[in-house]
């Protein structure tokens, strides 16, 4: 039944939604629009609203040595860290879920403890450690500390504890080894948790700035966020190229998000609901 008050409520709801949408989307739309302006165009409203599009800024940014290299670095580091996280978080999470002895419980507490520790307080000792060990300013510094994450271990452990062990036991009765069971029986069962953690690992790494920034100094090792932040520090700031670079940095995440929305939402809420 359509009543006047109901119509009023719907209008109110959509009105509020549209206001929030405009506030949320405007800065990102602005970024893309500026990136697509022809060289020399101003960013006045009258220029933004015309159908004046050009891809010069993108072309110039992609062909520039620093951003192209940074894109490659971000992709490489992101890929390595993601694959390692899937493998290692699964391995550790599996052990924590299927063996309940005191040492294993202690290890679990170390995982929970690190989850609660603010990572940024370790910047000085981590910097000193990397310099002293000779890993500073290398791909090792960009990957080694992040190959296995506490949140990933936590996710796998919780997930494995929620599924029955009967299949593993059946495989054991059939004479399969621990390793065989782990990779051929348990890992496929764990796929939902592993895809959530893969996405999370990739996103976190792709957007990460502070540690890549302080643990490297050579231009060849810059990741995208670092390269963009330093590009901005340069004398004459060319906003079109800066926004084109930013768009390039956001695009992979945006595309992945559109395809994998469900997994991403699950990953974020999983941690929350368990509390």
């Amino acid at each position, binding site marked *: 039944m359509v009543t006047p008050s109901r119509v009023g409520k719907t209008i109110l709801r959509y009105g509020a939604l549209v206001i929030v949408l405009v506030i949320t989307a405007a800065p990102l739309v602005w970024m893309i629009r500026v990136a697509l302006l022809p060289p020399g165009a101003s960013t006045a409203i009258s220029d933004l609203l015309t159908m004046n599009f050009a891809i010069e800024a993108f072309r110039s940014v992609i062909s520039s040595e620093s951003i192209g290299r940074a894109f490659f670095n971000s992709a490489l580091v992101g890929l390595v860290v993601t694959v390692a996280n899937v493998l290692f978080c699964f391995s550790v999470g599996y052990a924590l879920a299927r063996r309940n002895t005191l040492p294993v419980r202690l290890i679990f507490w170390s995982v929970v403890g690190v989850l609660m520790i603010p990572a940024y307080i370790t910047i000085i000792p981590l910097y000193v450690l990397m310099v002293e060990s000779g890993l500073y300013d290398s791909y090792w510094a960009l990957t080694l500390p992040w190959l296995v994450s506490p949140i990933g271990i936590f996710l796998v452990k919780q997930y494995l504890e929620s599924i029955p062990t009967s299949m593993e036991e059946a495989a054991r009765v059939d004479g399969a080894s621990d390793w065989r069971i782990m990779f051929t029986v348990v890992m496929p069962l764990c796929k939902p948790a592993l895809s959530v953690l893969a996405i999370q690992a990739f996103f976190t790494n792709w957007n990460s700035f502070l540690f890549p920034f302080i643990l490297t100094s050579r231009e060849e090792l810059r990741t995208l966020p670092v390269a963009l932040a330093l590009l901005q520090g340069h004398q004459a700031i060319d906003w079109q190229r800066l926004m084109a670079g930013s768009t390039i940095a956001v695009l992979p995440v945006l595309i992945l998000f559109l395809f994998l929305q469900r997994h991403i939402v699950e990953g*974020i809420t999983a941690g929350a609901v368990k509390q």
Partner: protein
Amino acid sequence: MKLARSTAVILVMPWVATFAAFWLFPILYSIFLGFTDYELLRPTYDWVGLDNFRALFADQDFLSAIKNTAIFVVGTIPVTTALALLMALLVNKQFPGRDFFRASFFIPSITSMVVVALIFTTLYSRGGYVALLAEMAGVATPANGFLNDSRTALYSIMAMDIWMSSGYYMLIFLAGLKSIPVELYESAEINGAGALRQFWSITLPLLRPTALFIIVINTIKSFQVFVEILVMTKGKFDTSTMVYHIYETGLTTQFRFGYASAAAYILFCIIALFSIVQFILMRRRESW
């Protein structure tokens, strides 16, 4: 089903090694460093006891970094939490276009902080769109842009952070809303409770654990505000925060590792204290 000990030892190795090398060691090492006068360019260093801590609390820059961090935490968290709840309520029930709105609200939080900071640097600049909007609303704008004025810089960065993170906490609120049994609303309906009454007596009390969880993780995150400060103001115009101060004293010009480690340790204690208090509140959720 129990794993053999030998297998388990191998399986947990990646974490044990990572934990020891990149968490336990740095944390213990930074406590030690905090009591020394270690600097990058000095060949030796000495144990100086509490000197660093004493110097820090007499250091005007550090004190203003604490003040700015406090303003940031206290100013953003209530607003972010309230907006996140509002957004969650707007997109909770099924309606045409719901998933589109949900996704759009969430997207800022998966964008890189550096990118967001760059976008807002241009929007906040002199003659930028925020100034334009403010002028249209008849509000006076700072002559050199919002980020180049100590009266507006920190608040502008805070507003950006709220813009960026509300969608993320909206998702967590949505999970909390989903866990409220529908029967509660049905019986409230039967007893003649209106929408507002249902919100105050059912939704809000049952969302308290979720809200507290959000406040805890946002507190840990907000105390560490750094990237946006570095990209947008480099700590100028009264925007330096605790992590920025650690970075500036420890990893630029003088590389005062000892001094910066002491500052990091103070920050650690503050965050730990807040987390413990919030966890005690969380445990007593019934009486809270």
